[in-house]
């Protein structure tokens, strides 16, 4: 996929903090050197084609009351994966859901990240997800420490 220099400038300008002011896009457009109208139009296209996943806020989950999070890894038969994904993704507490490859001592091929208020509620939700889908082989991994959490900076080379 090829991106124009303007696209790269848009991505670089938007991956930093978005201005909290009355006309934020106008400010960004001026920095990039394009019109506000052109910027808004291109952002709409980027959203539509999925290049831009989301324009908005991500909160610090601990501070807003979601104090426990667990990575739940599952062993799902490949032919059931799409169907199990639909069931698990329907729960708002499930924020991420991926398939992943396995390794010789690592049989888990399906990953869900769940965010809740306590570890007990994470354990309870995993039980419910298991009962609902019939997937019985799983493991909860609680986060013990966050060593790094940043956003990727694209096109910096």
């Amino acid at each position, binding site marked *: *996929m090829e991106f124009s220099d303007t696209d790269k400038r848009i*991505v670089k300008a*938007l*991956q930093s*903090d*978005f201005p*909290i002011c*009355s*006309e934020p*896009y*106008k400010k960004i457009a001026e920095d990039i050197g394009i019109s*506000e109208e052109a910027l*808004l139009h291109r*952002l*709409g296209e980027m*959203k539509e*084609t*999925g*290049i*831009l*996943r*989301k*324009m*908005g*806020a*991500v*909160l*610090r989950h601990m*501070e*807003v*009351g*979601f104090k426990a999070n667990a*990575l739940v890894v599952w062993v799902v038969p490949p032919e059931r994966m799409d169907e199990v*994904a639909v069931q698990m*993704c329907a729960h*708002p507490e*499930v*924020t991420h*859901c*991926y*398939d992943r*490859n396995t*390794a010789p001592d*690592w049989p888990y091929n399906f990953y869900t990240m769940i965010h809740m208020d306590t570890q007990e509620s994470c354990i309870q939700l995993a039980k419910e997800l298991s009962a609902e889908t019939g997937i019985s082989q799983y493991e*909860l*991994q*609680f*986060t*013990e*420490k*966050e*060593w*790094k*959490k*940043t*956003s*990727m*900076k*694209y096109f*910096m080379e």
Partner: protein
Amino acid sequence: MELNSFDKQLLNILQAGIQFVPKPYETMANELGVSEEQVLSRLQELKSAGYIRKVGAFFNSDKLGYSGTLLAAKIEPDRVAEVAARINEYPEITHNYQRSGGYELWFTAITNSDERKNQILSEIRALPGVISLLDLYSQKKYKINVQFKLK
């Protein structure tokens, strides 16, 4: 600072998405029945108080020509902090967590070539204290939607 019901509504709207209109905060203010000025000043306060990690654009790395993967490392127990610090030095590694089940460190790497990815992997494998490293790449991303509905 405690979140009041106005803050929660505002943060829910902000998480759902900022619109592509010249005055997006005014649009939010209209929805909430307050002035644009109130929205702007309260958002600054909520950000300063640490409730908001980032306001901005979240791109799909695959569609920008990058590729992300999840790596899990088994590490000698007394060297976890040291290895974590070395791992954090890579700008391509954006998240790095210590978890409770067998593999101590779980981290993501976003790279724009296989060559660079392999270089990072082999450098990390060679760090003192690293016992093994799994490359857990994904074919299907079923859901990425980090929204915390505040009630």
